């Protein structure tokens, strides 16, 4: 090991890339969990193609998994320190993500002439052709994996499936990760296939030992650990966090959780997780389409359950009429939109923030709903809980705007204690009102919510519907003045939610002239960019919105304090337009990106500086 340098870093970024069938997500996930278990902060970004299995070795079939580990980790990183490329196509698609001075590990066995042809190289010298100047570690991953499993009795296909774990072993060596935790995760993963576990454990060690034994000049890394709050931690992605936040809300309101859903990328994992959670009493129903997803949830809400539907942009479009019914019937309903690239089928596996206008306005008639947006994968837990709380306490549909980036991204998450989240008080009809026969469906509480009787409650029979109702009696009404009254009541009900949500916080340099604004899943990149800007002598304040409609009550005050306001978002400026309409006096500057990819910190810093200098 005399040629090996050791670098100590606050954080490092590793990108695993290979064929979509190569198991890059698994290798990446295990590396993430092992690192989190060692006390590193982690943030991940799976970048996978829309095709389930494009032709092997082709450029279209490359799947990637990027993870940042260390301290001060808010994003999966703009670029990587180490790139693992399991074949020639993966190298071609991913070498641009490597930082200067980074290391590339390739499976040199997958750079044969036929591999280069499939990946559309023009020459037989791939590294020169791509202009790569980084350290390249050429590892015969396939040969070594086969050799390690020569006596295993596994067929060739099963042996080839272990290549990813050889690479994982090598990366574990590179970053000084002990193998025991990785082995433990493999054992769980292959609990029902002991032979496959044994093979993977063997290959893991072979990869690690290979790293130890090679005499190449390679940089190895020591990563700083964070000093997190004491507690029990687990690794969680945004979609799982969303599902768990709903379950926590169900526990806190005492109403059973019902999900009506239909599979759609990138939201399906919420359905998967809640389908598993029958063990916690969840009724998760895969319906025949998006419309029945929302409609079954509306039925469940009318029956008295905490009702949720989960989807992505195209599905939200199909649910519009149903959401309008829930607006009219004033039933609590949580609609989760894990945003992806649009319009139409668009970029199903990529991230965007382009459903904001659809969430705010995408219904017929005057039909305001509450809209919230989680900032990070773990914040999905909190904001899913908040969506339920607002829906139930204010008797309204709430749209949760997650996105592909935070939905699939993962971080370490401290499991909350039972009392960390407040009880949710559902609007039960007061018993004396029921007994006296004074209750009518549109009798309202001080916050203008309707009451919400559970089906089967004696004395609480009533009729709801999509037709306008008389504000006092709840009977069908075509009266012009009554309609206007009801429209304004429904609007005011949503507006008053502002009294019941946290104030907007200002991070970064609160005294700066410039305020950087973001919303939803871009938090990590914006927060890191704001820190870097401040550190580089370009002071900025930073405000990030998780409550979109209504906005936090102090929004106007905060915006008034700054000379220059920049709104950064992954669309052509929807949130900026929304703010501009509410605060017409301010000229809002914009940073926009619509490439299906998250921001990079670098581009945010650069563009912000440019706007500050104009």
């Amino acid at each position, binding site marked *: 090991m005399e040629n090996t340098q050791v670098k100590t870093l606050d954080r490092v970024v590793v990108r695993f890339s290979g064929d979509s069938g190569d198991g890059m997500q698994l290798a990446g996930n295990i590396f993430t969990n092992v690192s989190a278990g060692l006390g590193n902060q982690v943030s991940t970004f799976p970048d996978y193609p829309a095709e389930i299995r494009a032709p092997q070795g082709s450029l279209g079939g490359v799947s990637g998994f990027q993870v940042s580990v260390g301290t001060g980790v808010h994003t999966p990183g703009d670029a990587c320190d180490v790139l693992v490329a399991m074949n020639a196509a993966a190298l071609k698609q991913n070498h641009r993500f490597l930082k200067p001075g980074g290391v590339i590990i390739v499976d040199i066995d997958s750079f044969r002439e036929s591999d280069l042809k499939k990946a559309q190289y023009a020459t037989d010298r791939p590294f020169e052709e791509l202009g790569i100047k980084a350290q390249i570690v050429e590892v015969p991953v396939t040969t070594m994996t086969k050799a390690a499993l020569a006596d295993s009795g596994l067929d060739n296909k099963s042996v080839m499936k272990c290549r990813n774990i050889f690479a994982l072993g090598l990366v574990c060596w590179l970053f000084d990760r002990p193998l025991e935790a990785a082995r433990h995760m493999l054992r769980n993963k292959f609990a029902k296939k002991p032979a496959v576990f044994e093979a993977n454990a063997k290959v893991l060690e072979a990869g690690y030992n290979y790293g130890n034994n090679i005499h190449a000049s390679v940089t190895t890394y020591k990563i700083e650990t964070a000093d997190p709050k004491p507690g029990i*931690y687990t690794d969680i992605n945004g979609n799982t966090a969303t599902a768990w936040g709903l379950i926590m809300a169900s526990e806190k309101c005492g109403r059973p959780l019902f999900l009506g859903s239909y599979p759609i990328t990138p939201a399906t994992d919420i359905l998967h997780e809640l389908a598993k959670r029958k063990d916690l009493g969840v009724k998760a129903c895969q319906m025949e389409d998006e*419309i*029945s997803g929302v409609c079954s949830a509306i039925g469940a809400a009318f029956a008295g359950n905490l009702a949720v539907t989960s989807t992505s942009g195209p599905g939200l479009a199909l649910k519009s009429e149903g959401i309008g019914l829930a607006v009219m019937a004033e039933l609590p309903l949580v609609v989760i939109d894990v945003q992806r690239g649009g319009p139409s089928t668009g970029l199903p596996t990529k991230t965007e923030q382009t459903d904001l206008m659809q969430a705010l306005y995408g219904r017929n008639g005057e039909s305001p709903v509450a809209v919230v947006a989680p900032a990070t994968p773990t914040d999905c837990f909190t904001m899913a809980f908040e969506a339920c709380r607002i829906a139930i306490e204010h008797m309204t549909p709430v749209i949760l705007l997650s996105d592909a980036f935070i939905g699939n991204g993962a971080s370490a998450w401290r499991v909350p204690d039972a009392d960390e989240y407040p009880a949710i008080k559902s609007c039960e009809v007061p018993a004396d009102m029921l007994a006296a026969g004074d209750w009518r469906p549109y009798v309202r509480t001080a916050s203008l919510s309707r009451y919400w009787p559970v089906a*089967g409650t004696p004395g609480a029979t009533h009729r709801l519907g999509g037709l306008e109702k008389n504000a006092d009696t709840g009977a069908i009404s075509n009266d012009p003045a009554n309609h206007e009254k009801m429209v304004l009541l429904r609007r005011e009900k949503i507006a008053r939610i502002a009294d019941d949500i946290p104030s907007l916080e200002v991070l970064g340099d609160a005294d700066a002239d410039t305020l950087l604004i973001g919303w939803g899943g871009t938090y990590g990149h914006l927060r890191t960019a704001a820190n870097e800007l401040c550190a580089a002598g370009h002071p900025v304040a930073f405000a990030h919105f998780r409550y979109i409609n209504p906005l936090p009550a102090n929004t106007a005050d905060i915006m008034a304090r700054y000379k220059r306001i920049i709104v950064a978002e992954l669309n052509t400026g929807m949130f900026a337009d929304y703010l501009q309409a509410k605060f017409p006096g301010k000229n809002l500057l914009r940073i926009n990106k619509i490439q299906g990819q998250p921001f990079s910190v670098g581009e945010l810093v650069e563009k912000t500086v440019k706007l500050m200098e104009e």
Partner: protein
Amino acid sequence: MIIMENTVFTPADFKSDQAVRWCPGCGDHAILNTLHKAMAALGVAPHMTAVISGIGCSSRLPYYMNTFGFHTIHGRAAAIATGYKTAHPEMTVWQISGDGDGLAIGGNHFIHAVRRNVDINIILFNNKIYGLTKGQYSPTSARGFVSKSSPYGTVEDPFIPAELVFGARGNFFGRSIDVELEISRDLFVAAARHKGTSVVEVLQNCVIFNNGIHSAITDREYRADRTILLRHGEKMLFGKNMDKGLVRDGFLLKAVTVGEDGYTLDDVLVHDAHTPSNFLHQQLAMMDGQTLPLALGVIRDVEAPTYDESVAAQVDEVRARKGFTTLRDMILAGETWEVK
């Protein structure tokens, strides 16, 4: 379903205070009154009953019920009723739909509700026309039917509701006519007592836009000869004098007169609504009143696992097996690490 044996309900207990707004002479009035009577006969309390509808003339019905009621959006009643029943299986759930609401815009939800066998009772008001939008052809209108949206006649074949129900593997199908109050009442009660999706087609007359559409069968003059009331365990006899019967003719059915052509009462088939095979049920349901009489009453009534009960049973089974009481229990049983 919770049957309150000691409580006697009257039809008035199920009536709301809202003025009924259907056109005078509309077949819906009779169906509504019959439903009130059926609910009283059934004995399920109003607060344990829910009536869910889509959009259309018939879908106004929930407003006239003193039960839980939901007048929803066009075509979606089956999906909403599915969620409602699954969320709260103790409720007795009725769905009111028309031929447009249930079989056109709501066709997908209709077949999937039937396939899942959710324990809801679907009353399908079939008047072969869109009444609320003032007279367009519906998915049950016959080929060539002239309407405002088909001035030269339709060039498409209709759905036959029964065929759709059998295609979706339905386990309960019955049929009545709006004016046949007793048949309808008994059918509604049977539908409610059946566990699983029950579909009851009621031939309903739209007096304004499609008056007399069923009259070739339903007019008093012919009704006895062109319809047959099926009762489980009884001979399939019909006609003014109850001297006609259905017999097997190879794989098909044939209408004969008992005592003629060598046919005796012994040749007449006995109706078995409970046999799992739907082969004969389909043939009976597809009789159209032309050469064979239109079948009324309970045509098929077969027990099968219901969706709502199966969901609840699976939840109970998995909960008992895993033994978690809270989210935290579940998480701590998985991959975690402790930071001290």
